[in-house]
């Protein structure tokens, strides 16, 4: 049952001691507020960094050719070699753990020399030859049209999927680029799709300057013959990409007469390993936030208990008077604990709300200014964590009040009355 009378008494006491009420409340408010802000900022940093990776498949690896470093089967060291379409078929056939395999080639241009033309407009872009699988490994967001499909590959269609920036350079603002033609290195291609990046910042800018065309088309147009530039591959779910990587290297070495112990012939990059490192880094940052957060919380609690000590000391005489008038020790302790819990919960809740509000405000500010920064994005706080922090603080508030209150009633009423 709610004892209205008791609460009136508590509110009255707090109201009539505004300064000490304010300072107690502020300590608690600050502890919770700082914790929320820190947790939110940590999450914001993490979100931003992971956003930089877009939806990149983390269980993936890359492979490219380098020079051999061991003489083998009559071949000297220092030999150059190239992957080819036969390798692609062999990899798909022999590695059941393989999920997506994307052979890639890059066309010329894009490093300053204009390679794309439409009417009077020209631009320099990076041109990739891709299989449909590439969009599963490093996905982009199609804003209109479609990505390269299997028929494009099969029929060597002269179609391209272009980035947002490419559209901005080659087309008028009110033009629909779909089904229009652009000339790349002297050959006309039909635009079948427009995309924007899922990443942010510079990475997104770079990605949106890409032009993707069917892998087979690029092989023919740029006279690559059967050559494959490099491979990107992902492993089946729940299978580490390391297994696929090892198997693929074995197969490729056999097919190109490379010594099994030659580790330099095939270059590679394992995304899952890098991703693990990054996750480790953020686990570290998170740990740090918790250490600092708990420290802040502890400081808040110590602050409360300090203020409670002072309050009780200050109130010893008042407590003495109350006891002379017939207040039982339990009643005195209960009253003090009620006051302290009431105060900490109110102040803590305000800290919680203001903290969340500020985080939301920052979020809103970032979004409306369009500045989804590379270092900070979507700060957020796990509500459960915040509420448990508040509960911890309230419980600490009880103990902070309990200890001095108990001491206050343990001395004889007459001594309490005499104290000044």
């Amino acid at each position, binding site marked *: 049952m709610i004892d209205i009378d008791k609460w009136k008494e508590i509110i009255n006491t707090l109201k009539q001691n505004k300064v000490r009420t304010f300072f107690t409340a502020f300590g608690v408010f600050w502890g919770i507020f700082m914790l929320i802000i820190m947790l939110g900022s940590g999450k914001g940093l993490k979100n931003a960094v992971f956003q930089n990776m877009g939806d990149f498949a983390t269980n993936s690896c890359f492979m490219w050719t380098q020079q051999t470093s061991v003489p083998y089967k009559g071949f000297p060291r220092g030999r150059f070699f190239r992957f080819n379409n036969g390798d692609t078929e062999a990899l798909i056939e022999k590695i059941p753990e393989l999920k997506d395999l994307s052979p890639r080639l890059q066309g010329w241009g894009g490093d300053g020399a204009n390679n794309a033309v439409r009417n009077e407009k020209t631009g320099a872009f990076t041109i990739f030859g891709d299989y449909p699988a590439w969009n599963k490994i490093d996905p982009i967001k199609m804003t209109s049209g479609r990505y390269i499909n299997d028929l494009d590959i099969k029929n060597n269609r002269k179609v391209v999927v272009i980035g947002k920036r490419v559209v901005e350079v080659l087309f008028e603002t009110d033009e629909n680029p779909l089904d229009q033609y652009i000339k790349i290195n002297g050959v006309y291609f039909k635009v079948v799709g427009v995309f924007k990046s899922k990443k942010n910042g510079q990475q997104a800018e770079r990605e949106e300057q890409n032009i993707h065309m069917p892998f087979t088309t690029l092989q023919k147009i740029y006279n690559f013959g059967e050559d494959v530039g490099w491979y990107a591959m992902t492993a089946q779910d729940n299978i580490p990409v390391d297994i696929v990587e090892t198997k693929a290297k074995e197969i490729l070495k056999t097919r190109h007469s490379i010594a099994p112990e030659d580790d330099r012939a095939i270059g590679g990059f394992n995304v899952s390993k890098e991703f693990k490192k990054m996750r480790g880094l953020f686990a570290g940052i998170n740990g740090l936030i918790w250490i600092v957060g708990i420290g802040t919380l502890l400081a808040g609690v110590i602050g409360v208990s300090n203020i409670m000590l002072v309050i009780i000391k200050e109130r010893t005489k008042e407590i003495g008077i109350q*006891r002379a*008038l017939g207040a039982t020790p339990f009643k005195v302790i209960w009253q003090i604990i009620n006051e302290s819990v009431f105060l900490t919960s109110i102040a803590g809740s305000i800290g919680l709300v203001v903290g969340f509000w500020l985080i939301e405000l920052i979020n809103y500010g970032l979004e409306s200014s369009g500045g989804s920064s590379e270092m900070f994005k979507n700060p957020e706080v796990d509500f459960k964590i915040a509420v448990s922090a508040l509960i911890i603080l309230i419980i600490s508030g009880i103990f902070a009040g309990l200890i001095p209150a108990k001491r206050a009633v343990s001395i004889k009423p007459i001594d309490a009355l005499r104290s000044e």
Partner: protein
Amino acid sequence: MIHLSNIHKSYVTGANKLHVLKGIDLIIEQGELVSIMGSSGSGKSTLLNILGILDDYDNGLYKLHNTEMNNLSEKKAAYYRNNMIGFVFQSFNLISFKNAMENVALPLYYQGVNRKKRNKIALEYLDRMGIKDWAEHLPSEMSGGQKQRVAIARALITNPKVILADEPTGALDSQTSLEVMDLFREINKSGITMIIVTHEKDISERTDRVIRLRDGIIENGQYN
């Protein structure tokens, strides 16, 4: 009503032991108006504190209203203080952040009387003390005489058996002191036992019986 026999009390501070009360035997009947006199250090305040169960004693027997007041739990002590005893102090001991009415009503709060009812009763008592108009004022806004009237109203509100006053006029001018003594006399007429500790002769002269303490024993306890 009050029955003391062979009460001893010592204060221990470090290695020193100060024997304050050295065997007090005293009987005070219901409805008496008694003053306890003595020079400072004679033990009169200590005696009053023991009577008020604010302090404990080492040896002897104390019966208040036929109940033995020995080895009481703090909860029991609080109950007796609340129901049987009213206190009036030299320094008033009002709670500074509560107004006069709330101060007077406080003992009823510990009895679980609801706010509205206890404030109404408090107003009646303030009216009896002639300071009803000051009910909403804080103690800091009142004169010493007014504060002591508030304290007396507070002591009376639970309708106690005995009122213990520790130098009630010590902080008041002589005119106000006389007024307060008249109040005490009036209260005493309603049947409440009054015990007043004082060192002022003209205060003790206005009581029916003077108990003189010297060095922890009762020197003289005759009726005026």
